Each structure stands twice: as C-alpha cells, then as structure tokens.
C-alpha cells in the first residue's frame, strides 16, 4: 500500500520537474511519512533486520528527488540536508547502481565550490576517486556530471577565468540544475578578477574592462567600479588600493605603518633573544 503510494509520488515528481517548490515539498513530506511506515527512512545497521532493498531504493529515489527540487528552488540548506541523508544509502551495496547519484554528487561538489568550502570539496573528491578505482568506472573527470565541477575547480584555482566563463555559457552545463550555480559563480569570478586586477594593473581602460569582467555594457562597468570603490577618470579606471601599496600619494600612511611595524619587529627580536637567553640558562 505504502509502496504503491510512494511510487505514485515519485512518478509525479519525476514527470514534473517544474513543479513549484511548496507543492513538491508537501509531496516529499508525504513520501517521507510513507518511508517511515516502511521503516526505510534510514538504512538500518548491518546485521539487524531492516527494510528490504527495494524499499531502500525507493527511499533513496525520494531523497534524490528532494535534493533536485531543493536545488531548483535554490535552497542550499535543504539540499545539503538531503545529501547527508543520501550518504548512508550510497554506502549500501544493493543501491550502488543508481541513476542520479553522480548528478546529486556533482551538484553537491558545485555547491561546496561556490561556498568556498574547498576542504570539503577535496575530501568529497577523494572519496569519489577511490570509488571510481574500485568500480573500475575509469576517470571521474570523464563523467558528465562529476567532471564539470572538477574542471571548474581546476580552472578557478589556476586562474583561467575565461574558461570557467565559457563553460558556464556554453552547452557544457550538464543539466539545468547546474545552471542555478552559474549566477553565484559569475559574481564569484568577477570579484576574483576584480581583486587581481587591482594588484596587477596600474590602470585599465573602460572599454577593455568590460570584456575582462564579462560585463554587458560600459555602464555596468562604471557601476561595478563604483561598487568596488575604484575611481573612473578620462575613460580609465584607477585602483585606489594599489596606489596605497605602491609608492603613490598617501606616503605618510605607509611610513607610519612602517614605523609601527619596525617597533613591533624590534620588540619581537628582543623578546626572542631574551627567550633564548632564558632557555640557555635552563640548559647550562
């Protein structure tokens, strides 16, 4: 009974990916209640009699759909919850060959990437690579869903922002859910580029800044420049922060800071030397 209901809900969810989130989530909660009745909400500990593999597979499908819906609704918290719920299911032998696993994992990787949680990103990646080795599935980078975030990460780290940009714009995006992150990524790489430009260029002409920052018009460039606190003069952009670090006009500020630094430095040297003396005393 409960099983049939579940199937029904799943089919409903699968056939209408465009379902508004509130409706989908109400369906999902119904599904979860059914799962609880089947005692398949979480896989049981090994050795104890638990739910049948079919039920567990159903449970996994429900969570996967939930994850996808929450991503479509741009709800990263709910998505993360679903992913953690899915984790134990993926460890089970019976449910190993599931269809949506790579998609969900890929999305999770992308989420970690956009949130700047690189440590977790790489931990997840390590798990994936051992999994690939064991399954003999070959390179994970070859996978459509998993390869995408991995490539993006590599390019981001390297600094090939244009490739990231192209990857997001082109047909390389594996599925529509991945598009959700494009916006976040765009603003992320834009601010990355901006911060490196501040240090790298003495000045930039407005016209080329447009292409540099992947903006649509010069008006947008000026808005962005103002937002970052850059000064725009005669069609050129000047970076205030770079002026302060290089020998620009606010020399007083830097020399003051230098003096403070020097003082601190000599204090440190004295402290260290006294420390050595004390240690020597104890040794000798």
């Amino acid at each position, binding site marked *: 009974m409960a099983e049939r209901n579940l199937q029904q809900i799943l089919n409903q969810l699968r056939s209408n990916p465009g379902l508004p989130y509130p409706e989908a989530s109400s369906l999902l909660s119904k599904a979860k209640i059914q799962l609880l009745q089947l005692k398949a909400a979480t896989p049981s500990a090994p050795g104890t009699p638990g739910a049948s593999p079919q039920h567990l597979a159903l449970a996994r499908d429900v969570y996967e759909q939930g994850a996808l819906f929450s991503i479509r609704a741009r709800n990263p918290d709910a998505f993360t919850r679903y992913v953690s719920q899915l984790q134990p299911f993926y460890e089970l032998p019976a449910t190993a060959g599931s269809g949506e696993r790579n998609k969900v994992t890929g999305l999770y990787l992308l989420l970690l990437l956009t949130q700047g949680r690189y*440590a977790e990103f790489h931990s997840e990646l390590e798990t994936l690579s051992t999994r690939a080795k064991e399954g003999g599935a070959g390179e994970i980078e070859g996978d459509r869903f998993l390869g995408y975030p991995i490539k993006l990460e590599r390019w981001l780290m390297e*600094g090939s922002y244009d490739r990231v940009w192209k990857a997001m714009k082109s047909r390389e995006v594996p599925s529509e859910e991945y598009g959700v992150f494009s916006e976040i990524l765009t603003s992320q790489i834009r601010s990355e580029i901006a911060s490196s430009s501040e240090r790298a260029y003495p000045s930039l002409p407005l016209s080329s800044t447009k292409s540099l920052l992947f903006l649509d018009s010069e008006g947008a460039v000026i808005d962005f420049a103002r937002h970052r606190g850059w000064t725009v003069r005669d069609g050129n952009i000047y970076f205030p922060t770079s002026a302060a670090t290089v020998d620009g006009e606010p020399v007083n500020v830097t020399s003051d800071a230098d003096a403070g630094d020097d003082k601190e*430095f000599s204090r440190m040297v004295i402290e260290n030397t006294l420390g050595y003396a004390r240690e020597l005393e104890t040794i000798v």
Partner: protein
Amino acid sequence: MPGKTPHSNGNEPVENGVRKNQDVDMTDEKSSLKGKGKKGVKEGEDMTVVVPPSKTTKQSSQPPPPDADGDVEMDVDKPEDLEVKVDPVTQVITDIKSNFALLDRAVALFDARFTLRALRSISSLRKRLTPDILAQVIAETFSVSSTSASVAKQLLVAIGKEDVPLGRQASSEMEIDSEPKAPAKNGNKKENKEVIPEIDIFLSILVQVYLFDSKQFQQGAEFSKYLSERIHSLNRRTLDSLSAKVYFYYSLFCEQLAPLPPSPQSPIVAIRPTLLTALRTAVLRKDIDIQASVIVLLLRSYLLTSHISQADLLVSHTQFPENAANNQVARFLYYLGRIRAIQLRYTEAHEHLTAATRKAPASSCALGFAQTATKLLLVVELLMGDIPERATFRVPSMEQALHPYFLLVQAVRVGNLEDFEVTIAEHADTFRRDGTYSLILRLRQNVIKTGIRMMSLSYSRISLRDICIRLHLGSEESAEYIVAKAIRDGVIEATLDRERGFMKSKEVGDVYATREPGEAFHDRIRACLALHDESVKAMRFPMNQHRLELKNAQEAREREREMAKEIQEGDLDEDDLGGDFEGM
C-alpha cells in the same frame, strides 16, 4: 645530582640488551604493517629497495614482508648467529617462555614496561613460529585441570592442532636442553599455579602473528574477534599493552578480508564500533597504549575507505596521548598529515609529515613507512610551492621508489607543463597506488605559477602571447587572468599592461633587508630548543631514586654539620664564642 648517574648506569646493561633488540623489532613490525598494509603491491617495491648492508648482522632484521615460509627460512638463517648446538625449536620455545617471566613480573609489580619488553620480542620470534612450536608451548604451559584449559583449547584450534594434549611435561625439552635452565625451570613452576591471563593473551598474540604471516586471514579475524571479547571480559589493567596489540592485529586481519578496503562493505567498517568502544574505555582509564593504537587504527580504516571527514572528526574529538610510543606517534602524524593535505591545509600537513618522517625509525626496517611518508611529504612540499631538496632523492634506499616523484619535481621546478603532464600520464598507476594521485593533480596550478615566476625573473618584459606559448596555456586571455592572479597571490612582483599586452616585472628586493632571515633563524632555534626539551622529558629516572638521593644529601649535610660542629667547637675553644648553629 651525583647519585643519579651511577645508578642509572647500573641499570643500563640490562636495559641495553633489550633495547638493541627493541629498535630493530619495532621497526621490523611497523614496516611489515606498511609493506603489507599498502595493498601488498608495495611489497615488491620494498623488496627491490631493501639492500642495506646491515641486514645480515642482526638476527631479527629480516626484510619486512614476512613470507609464509618463515619457519623454513629460520632453519637456514639461524645457525650463523646462534650457537650451533642449540636446536632451533627448543631455542624458540625457551625464548617464548622467557617472556612469561617478564609478564609475571609485570603483573606483580604492576609495571607495563615489562609487558612492553615481552611484546618487543615478538618480532624476533615471529619468523620462527610454527604451529608445532606454538602447540608445544601451549601444551606445556597449560595443564588439563586448570580453569584456563578451555582457553588453551581455543588457541590450539586456532592453529589447527586441536589434537595436542594439554599438560604435557616439558620432558623433551629437558633432554635436549643443555644451557637454558632458568626459563625451563620457570615453565615448570608455572605448571603448579594458575596461568595468569597475561600469558595466555601473549600466546594468543603469537597465534595471531602466526596466522597473519601464514595468510590465514579469515581464521585470524575470527580468532581475533573471540580474543577481543575475551579481553573485554577479563578487564585487567595489566593487559592494556597486550590488548593494544590484539586490536592491531584484529584490524589488520579485517583489512585483508574479502571486499578489500576501498569498498564500503569491507569488514574493516564492521569492526569500527568495537574499536570505538575500546577507545572510549581506554580514554576513561587513561590507558595510553590502547588509545594510541586504536586511534591510529581507526584513522587508517577511515582513510582506507576515504571517509576523510569522519577521520577529521575523529581527530578533532580525540586527543592523541602525548607520551605514546614513538612508532604510534609517527603513524598518527602520517595519517594526520594525509588528512590535512587532502583538506588543503598544506602548512599543517607539512609540519605533521616532517615530524612523521623524522620520528620514523632510522634503521632500514621501516623503509616502507619512511618511503610512503616521504612521498607524501614531497607532494605536499610541492603543493606549498617549495622544491624539495635534491639530496632526498639520492638516499640509496629511497632512490628507486622516489623516481617518479623525482621526475615530477623536475617538471614543477622548471615550470614545464608539458613534462608535468607526461610524467603524470606515465606514472599514473604508481601515484594512484601511493594515494597521491589526486594531490598531484592539484599541482597543475603550481607548475603554471612556477613557470610564470621563472619568466618574470628572466625577462623584464614579456608579452602575454609568449607566456601563453611557453606554458602551453589555452589562450591569451587565460594567460592574462592567470598572471593577474599570480600577481595578486604574491607569486611574482609585476604589473600588466592590458593595451599592449605584456607583463612587466618589478625589481626584486633584497631578501636580507626583510625580516624573513630572522624568522627562519628563530624557527630553527625554536626547533632546537623543543628538541632539547623533548629529550629531557624522554629521560627515564628509576622509581624512588630521589629518596635515595635525599638520603644521601641528608647524610652529607649531617656530615657537614658535624664537621661544622667540630670546627665550631675548636673555634669555641679558641675564641670562647658561644653560638647555636643547630638551626642551620
């Protein structure tokens, strides 16, 4: 102060005899862990590299990977080192039995050091163990009437000698024996009284070792399961260091069983609860041995199945005992370094791995561990942007194993992306086996960065197009972004000119004008001081020694006082002065 030195000197000879063994033993065992633990493939590699001259000099420093035919080998090897007249079998038996005395003393004096000493002898025994020898020892140790007869039966079943009767007198031994009298007597004495659990656990460990070396993993795992339950029910504090070993082998057995580690169905996952409970109990009892070894085992198990976040949580929720055995510390540091490397915390990883390689035993026996740790350390160094020293690759014992890494370092050092990718493609299997592959893939950006740095150092001005061509980057735009990022990250000191499309390098400042040399100097001094502190802490002083000293000091003071009194009296005679010096 003066009393201390002579006394500890008096202790030395006894200690020394054991310690010489110990160094070799412990390393032997560890390297065997590494050698086998790393999926057996490394074994071949180790073997090719192990060509140290010292091998023949010490009897127990057999090459790490123990073969199934240990018993045969023993017969060939033995006569060189030992007196030829002693029958090797008897020798082993007496060797095993001599440990019983140590265990007895450990229980009587409640001093774990004796137990540790007994454990150390395992690896020298390990090559010579055969079911016959074990059965004989067991039969001679346990009598039929004793309550632990059932335990002995279990042991015999485990080694497939269930038909050997218990309580056999050590008669055969007495006949052949010419010199080792004391241990034999010991064995007889034990016949009369109850066998202490420590001895039967010690024998169980020997059985475990035997099963492991003869690759009977399934049987070993079952036996270990029974053993760990028994330890649990015995609940004796004097068993602590022994149980640490039991858990160690238990986990090793599970690692070798059917679905091999990377799969989540491996038995190694199933024993985690057991290990975690053991850890909890150990922490509550402040039991350092079990804590250290179980934490290490758990970390190993998590890393084998790539549960990095779980491993990280374990590390953050437990405290590794500070004064754990050196080898456990080395292992722990290695695993910790691995976790941190995966999490991109390279500085910490570097620190831990350096410590791990330094703490690794220097003798050739733990070569597997040293190699694995060094490999990881090299990769982490590269990831940090450092170039490892060339001398590392010249060490004869490492040269061959590190060769792929050497090529890698060369590619990174020159900043040649093409070489780098060729090296990766060529040695992908080696890197995968070493578990460094995913880390090495991250190096790509470092290669690019080094390339840019080289270019910025050699050219005062270079066009982006040239950079793009030399580094084999996709496009000029990519090159521009990459260079800009490098400038922001402080890799190079340069500016970009977008209109004309070139990179202009700035003059490099004098390093000695900055505070960097001072800081490096400070770091080194601190390391030296820490080393001194550690060695002071590592010194062991005999118990109650200070009382003796106090007594000595008091006597000396009394003597002085007497002398002072005499002088005083003499003075009194002369000067007629009255004074009370009693208060002094």
